[in-house]
């Protein structure tokens, strides 16, 4: 469902861009192309809005690599939590709280329902009122005129013909059962001729169906202000192209008559509605433009080229966006290739293979199929970063691959770099994965450090990497013993959280919460966000060698002093934070 939200948004945005472009060049187009082709070009855009899905191209035209920037919200329970809350280290942004797309989906659905309900109620009211005030037209002259026009235009369906006092303009209502409504008034025969012809052209062209589609598009994209602009533009073009069809290729005389007929009806209606004269935006100018357009005898082209361009843009740009958002899930980042090569070259199993063919590093995520060629090695990243693990932590790696059966030598393993010494170790988790789709491996982290997972395809065929997930269990710090009464007596079974890249933890305590963090900087800032109440003491300390605690820094935080920066730290090493005495407070940590 997340991909649906993303698809919908990308569709909304890409179609908005196309629409704005289209609106921007409309003055130019209006000179060359007929209103009809411009009207139907919009239809393509509307269909593009209603159906957000596009054909997926295998290679994206626009490659946009985005990594999630949302700060992971991690809520840590009290010390008794058996399983580490960081279950999906690869998906911290979606793991705990309700994710953004679920909220977005609900808001969107509510919006669609409210919008449609509102439109339905208004339409129902309108129909009800107009029915009240309608009388079937029995005037022979009018009926004959309608029948004559119908057969002239090749229409045989029953169209109800009514005089309705509650409408201000002649109109066609009813998608399934068409009704033609005339306002109160004595229309001259020639006026009535044009009025009826205008409405019958609408009927013949199925403009109400088009309107339904526009309504659907607006309902789906209700949150996008640009669709309302589109709706308006289409409405104007609908009338203009209808006018064109009414007058066809006739000369100036007919055009004048037609203009006069429209103005005549407008005048008559305005006289009836005495007091009411809100000057609706575009009213006058819109009408002027329309008259100019009717009087314009210049030949306009049927814009096949225009229609094709809009069609290609609608499909093409959408597909480009669609693909790039798809590649978002597992993206190749080649900037780390050299680093990975260097790391992998130390691996005995691979050194025999000579030059390593490392193609890049991919962000682990809900993979939608990263295709791996033979001879390719990729390194997996956790949203652009390696994983920070502490010695003794139990780690589970689950993955899903899909091959064609020719695979025999697909390796998966990890490289870990020691935080303190910079030395690294490598390990192979599996040597020859076959085509079985799902695998799961457990291992215990051998050292405190930075972990990279890699895939190598030494088989003859290609395969798809569909899913990759790292889950980290248990905390490594229950052996810590205090050596100073200021520090916490015993730290057992506490929680490990990788706060390397910022984040927040919940200090829920009469007890003690302990968090491990690894920093690349010499500063760590701890703060209580605005609006949170609570006070307590923060201890920050480092651990060297055999569980020796040193570098103890402490600071009291409360509603007055909400932030503290610990400076002078050694970068690239593990620190531990204790939050003592807080009562359900969220603490943010950043480096």
């Amino acid at each position, binding site marked *: 469902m997340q991909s649906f939200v993303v698809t919908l948004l990308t569709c909304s945005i890409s179609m908005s861009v196309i629409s704005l472009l289209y609106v921007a060049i409309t003055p130019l187009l209006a000179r060359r192309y007929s209103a009809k082709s411009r009207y139907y070009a919009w239809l393509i855009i509307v269909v593009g809005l209603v159906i957000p899905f596009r054909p997926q191209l295998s290679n994206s035209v626009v490659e946009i690599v985005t990594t999630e920037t949302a700060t992971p919200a991690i809520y840590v329970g009290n010390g008794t939590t058996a399983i580490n809350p960081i279950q999906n280290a690869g998906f911290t942004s979606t793991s705990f709280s309700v994710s953004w797309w679920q909220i977005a989906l609900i808001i969107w659905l509510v919006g669609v329902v409210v919008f449609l309900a509102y*439109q339905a109620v*208004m*339409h129902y*009211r*309108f129909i*009800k*009122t*107009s029915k*009240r005030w309608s009388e079937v037209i029995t005037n022979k002259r009018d009926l004959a005129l309608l029948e004559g026009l119908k057969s002239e235009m090749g229409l045989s369906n029953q169209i109800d013909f009514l005089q309705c*006092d*509650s*409408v*201000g*303009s*002649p*109109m*066609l*209502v009813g*998608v399934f059962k068409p009704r033609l409504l005339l306002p109160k008034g004595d229309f001259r025969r020639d006026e009535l001729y044009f*009025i009826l012809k*205008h*409405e019958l052209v609408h*009927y013949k062209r199925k403009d*109400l169906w088009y*309107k*339904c589609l*526009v*309504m659907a598009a*607006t309902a789906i994209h209700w949150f996008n202000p640009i669709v*309302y602009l589109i*709706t308006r533009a*289409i*409405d104007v073009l*609908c*009338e203009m192209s*209808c006018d064109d069809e009414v007058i066809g290729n006739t000369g*100036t005389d007919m055009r*004048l008559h037609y*203009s*006069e007929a*429209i*103005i005549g*009806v*407008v*005048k008559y209606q*305005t006289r009836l*509605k005495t007091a*009411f*004269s*809100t*000057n*609706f935006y*575009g*009213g*006058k100018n*819109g*009408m*002027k433009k329309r*008259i100019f357009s009717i*009087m314009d005898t210049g030949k306009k082209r049927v814009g096949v080229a225009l229609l094709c361009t809009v069609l290609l843009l609608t499909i093409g740009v959408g597909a480009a966006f669609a693909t790039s958002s798809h590649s978002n899930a597992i993206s190749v980042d080649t900037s780390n290739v050299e680093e990975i090569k260097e790391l992998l070259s130390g691996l005995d199993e691979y050194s025999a293979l000579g030059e390593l063919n490392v193609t890049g590093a991919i962000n682990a995520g809900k993979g939608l199929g990263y295709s791996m060629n033979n001879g390719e090695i990729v390194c997996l990243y956790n949203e652009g970063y390696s994983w920070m693990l502490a010695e003794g932590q139990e780690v589970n790696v689950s993955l899903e691959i899909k091959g064609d059966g020719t695979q025999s030598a697909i390796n998966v393993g990890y490289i870990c770099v020691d935080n303190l010494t910079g030395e690294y170790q490598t390990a192979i988790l599996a040597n020859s994965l076959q085509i079985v789709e799902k695998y799961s491996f457990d291992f215990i982290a051998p050292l405190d450090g930075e972990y990279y997972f890699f895939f190598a395809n030494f088989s003859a065929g290609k395969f798809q990497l569909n899913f990759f997930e790292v889950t980290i269990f248990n905390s490594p710090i229950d052996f810590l013993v205090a050596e100073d009464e200021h520090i916490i007596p015993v730290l057992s079974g506490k929680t490990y959280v990788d706060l390397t890249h910022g984040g927040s933890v919940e200090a829920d305590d009469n007890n003690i919460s302990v968090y491990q963090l690894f920093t690349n900087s010499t500063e760590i800032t701890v703060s209580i966000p605005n609006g949170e109440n609570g006070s307590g003491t923060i201890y920050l300390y480092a651990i060297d060698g055999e569980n020796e605690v040193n570098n103890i820094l402490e600071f009291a935080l409360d509603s007055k002093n909400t932030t503290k920066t610990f400076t002078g730290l050694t970068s690239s090493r593990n620190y531990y934070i204790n939050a003592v005495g807080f009562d359900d407070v969220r603490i943010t940590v950043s480096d």
Partner: protein
Amino acid sequence: MEKLQKLPDAEFEVMKVVWTNEPPITTNLIMEQLGNTKGWKAQTVVTLLLRLVERGYLSKERRGREGLYFPLIGRDEYLQFETDNFVKQYHDNSFLALVNTLFKDKNLTDKDISEIDKLLQKTKERRD
């Protein structure tokens, strides 16, 4: 007078008869022109008429045994009320309404129209 309220269908039907006839209106007249075709009882018509009196649409006088009703709200007045309240807000300002109108009504002021009129005249003259 109290603010107008939208009439339910039955009361509206009664008012339609009231408007098409010269006052005073009697129960018998309503029965003849509407009640019989609808299959209403005389009592129903009386109730409807009294409700309309209550709402301020009719006034009632007593002459002998018969009640005479006079309209207080004209047809056009009520039409104006209904259209302003239930029609205008829908299709005037909405480009979404599922109707195809000849023009967006009530958008133009008299001044606008005379301006457009002049424009048409000019076109005509230029041609002649």
